[in-house]
C-alpha cells in the first residue's frame, strides 16, 4: 500500500463527495445548500489540485486540468454567493441560489471526471 496514493485518492474522492453534498437538493432553495459545505468543497478541491502538481504523465495532466476546472467553478460559485449575500439588494433569493448551485454542479461534473480518471488509473495498474 502506498500512503501517497491513499492521500491522493482520499482528497480526490472527498472533493467530489463534498461537492455532491452541496449540489444535491432543490436548486433554488437556499436552505438546502449549506455554505459551510461549499467552503469545505473549495478547500478540499484546492488541496487536491496541489496534490496533482508535478505529475508528468498524460493522465496526470488531465487530472490537473479537471481539478483546475472544478476550482474555477467552485470559486465562481463562492463569489456569486458572496455577492448575493453582501452586495445584492435582493439578498440570497431563489435566483441567486440557483446560479450558485448550478456553478457547483459544473464543478461536480469535473470532479466526477476526476474520480473516473482515478478509477481508470487504478484499474490499469496491474502489478498491485
Amino acid at each position, binding site marked *: 500500500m502506498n500512503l501517497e496514493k491513499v492521500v491522493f485518492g482520499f482528497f480526490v474522492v472527498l472533493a467530489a463527495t463534498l461537492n455532491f453534498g452541496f449540489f444535491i437538493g432543490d436548486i433554488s432553495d437556499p436552505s438546502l445548500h449549506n455554505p*459551510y459545505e461549499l467552503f469545505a468543497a473549495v478547500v478540499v478541491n484546492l488541496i487536491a489540485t496541489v496534490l496533482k502538481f508535478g*505529475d508528468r504523465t498524460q493522465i496526470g495532466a488531465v487530472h490537473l486540468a479537471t481539478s483546475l476546472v472544478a476550482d474555477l467553478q467552485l470559486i465562481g460559485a463562492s463569489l456569486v454567493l458572496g455577492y448575493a449575500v453582501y452586495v445584492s439588494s435582493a439578498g440570497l433569493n431563489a435566483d441567486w441560489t440557483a446560479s450558485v448551485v448550478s456553478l457547483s454542479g459544473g464543478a461536480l461534473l469535473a470532479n466526477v471526471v476526476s474520480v473516473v480518471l482515478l478509477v481508470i488509473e487504478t484499474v490499469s495498474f496491474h502489478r498491485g
Partner: protein
Amino acid sequence: MGNPLLTFWANLFERREEPRPRRTALRVAAASAAQASATIFLIMRRMRAPLIVLIAIFAVSVLGLTLIPGQDDAGRPWRMGFFDAFYVMSYTASTIGFGEIPYPFTYSQRMWVTVSIYLTVIGWAYAIGSLLSLVQDRAFRQALALQHFTRKVARLREPFLLIAGYGRTGELLGHSIDALGRRFVVLDIDGERIDSLELDSYHADVPGLTADARDPGHLAVAGLDHPWCEAVVALTDDEEANLAVVMAAELLRPGVPVIARVTSRTLAERMQAFGEPSTVNPFDRFGDHLRLALKAPASYQLLTWLESGPGAELERRGTPPRSGRWVICGYGRLGHELTSDLRAEGLEVTVVDPNPAGAADHGVLVGDGSDPWVLAQADLDAAVGFVAGTDNDTTNLSLVASARRSNPSLFICARQNRAASAPLFAAMDIDARLVPSEVVAHEVYAQLSTPLLWRFLKEMPGQGNDWAAELTDRLTAVCGRHLQALWKVRLNAAEAPALGAWLASGEARLGELMRNPEDRDQPLHAVALLVLRGGSATLAPGGDFVLAPDDELLLAGWPAARRALGITLVVDAVLEYVVSGRRVPSSWIWRRLSRRPRPVTSP
C-alpha cells in the same frame, strides 16, 4: 531598376535568389527540452507540501472565525460570514492588519484570531521560504537558463555560427565574427566563460549556454538542427569533445560546414572519417607559416594581416634566416611539426628536450633546455634561429633570455600558451610569436568570413614575394597600417542593379568603378583583392581589368568606401557620373525633359 526604391521593392516581393533554408525535421532538441521541463515539474512537486500547509491553515482559520459567535455594535449575537472571515484572515496573515471589522471582536474571537495569526505567519514563512530556496536552486536556475537559451536560439532568423567551446580562441573568433555583423551561439562547459559573455562588448546579443558540447542534445538546443545554422565550430580544449562535436554535426546535420581545432594528426584523421570537416591544427599551421615566412616574408606578412580581421595592425616584416642551423627547445607536438618543416626547407635542426619521443632522429640533444650547460652544448653561437616551444610560458621566456645572451643575432620564435603572458612576450620583442589560440581563431575566421577571402589566402602564396610586397604597399597606401573593412560584392541584378547595361557593354573597367561618387577624380579608398568569375579567380586585379556580369569581388578598404561603392552600384545617375563624369538627372521625368544624349550606361 536603378531606383533604390525599385530595388527595395524587387528584393521584397520577387523571389529571393538564395532560397530559404529548409526546416530540417530533427528531433534531437526534444530530449534536452524534456529535461528542462522535468526540472520544472520537480519544482512543482516540491511546492506541494508548503502550498497544502498554507491552504489548510487558511481553511481552519477562516472556518473557525465563521463558527465562533460574535456581537454586532448593538450587542446582538452575530456570526461572521465567509467573506468577512476570509477578508480578515487575508490581511491578518499578510501582517497588514486593518483592525477588527465589521464589528469589534468578542474575546472568544480575539483568542481564535491570536492563534490564527501565529499559524498563518508560520504557513506564509514556510511557503515563501520554500519558494525562495527553490528559485536559488542550481537545478532550477539551470533549467530556466536552458529554456531562455532555447527560446533565444529558436527565434534567430538570420544565419548564425554555432561555437562549441568559448575559451580564448572562441572569444577572439567571436569578436571578429561580431565585427562582421554576424551572429553566433556559444556552448561552453565552464559557467564562468558563459557569464563572461555578458561582460564582453558585443554588438549583437549572443546566446550562451553552460553545457557539455559532447551531448548532441545540447548541440541541438544550441541550434544544430536550426535552419539558419550556417556552420559549426568546435574549439574546446578537449580533443575528444571536439571529435564528439564533429561527429554529431556530420551525422545529424550533414552538409553544414564543420571546423574543428585539433592538435594531433591521428585525431584529425579520425574526424575525417565522418565526412569532410575542416580541421585546424595550430602547430601545423604555425609550421606552414614559418616555412612561408622563410620563403616569402612579404607573403607571410600579408597573410597574417588579412587573417587577423578588421582593425588589425600590419606587423613588421621579419627576415628569418634562410640558411644555417636552428635550435628547437621542446620536442612536443610543436617541436615535431617545426623540425619536419624546417628540415623540409633544407635547414639543419638541433632539438633539445629532456625526454624526446621518437628520439631516433639525429641532431637530438637530450637534456633540459633551461639548464645553461645543456644550452651551451647546443652551440647557439653557430646557430641562426632559436625556437622556445615548450608548453610552459616561464620556461619559454627564460629560454629566450638565455639564448639571446649567448647569441644576440638569433632569429627567435617563442610559443605563448597563456593570454596573460602576452605583455611579457611583447616586452621580449620576439621575432615570431606563436599563440595557438590566435592561430586557430584567425584560421577559422579566414574560412568563415567569406569564401573569397579563404580562396585568396589559399592562392596568394603562389604569387611570389614581390607580388605580395607590392599588394601590401597598395593596401597600406589606401587604408593605412590598420586593416579596415573586408567585404564581398556580387555584380548581379540584386546587388548591383545599376551596372547591368554597363557590364554588358564589355568595357566595364574596374578602375572606372572604383572612384569616389562625390568627386570622380578621387579614387575610392578600397582595393579589389580578388575577382571570382565562374570557378577561376584573378588575384588583385588592376584598374584595366574588365568586369563581367555575375563577377564576385572581394574588396578591402574604408567602411566609407564600402558605402560609396554601394551607392554607385545601385543608383544609375551616380554610376553615370563615376564612369563618364556627366551629371545626369536621376528621375525619369527630368531625364525626359532634359535634351541630352542618352547616357552611356543605360540601354
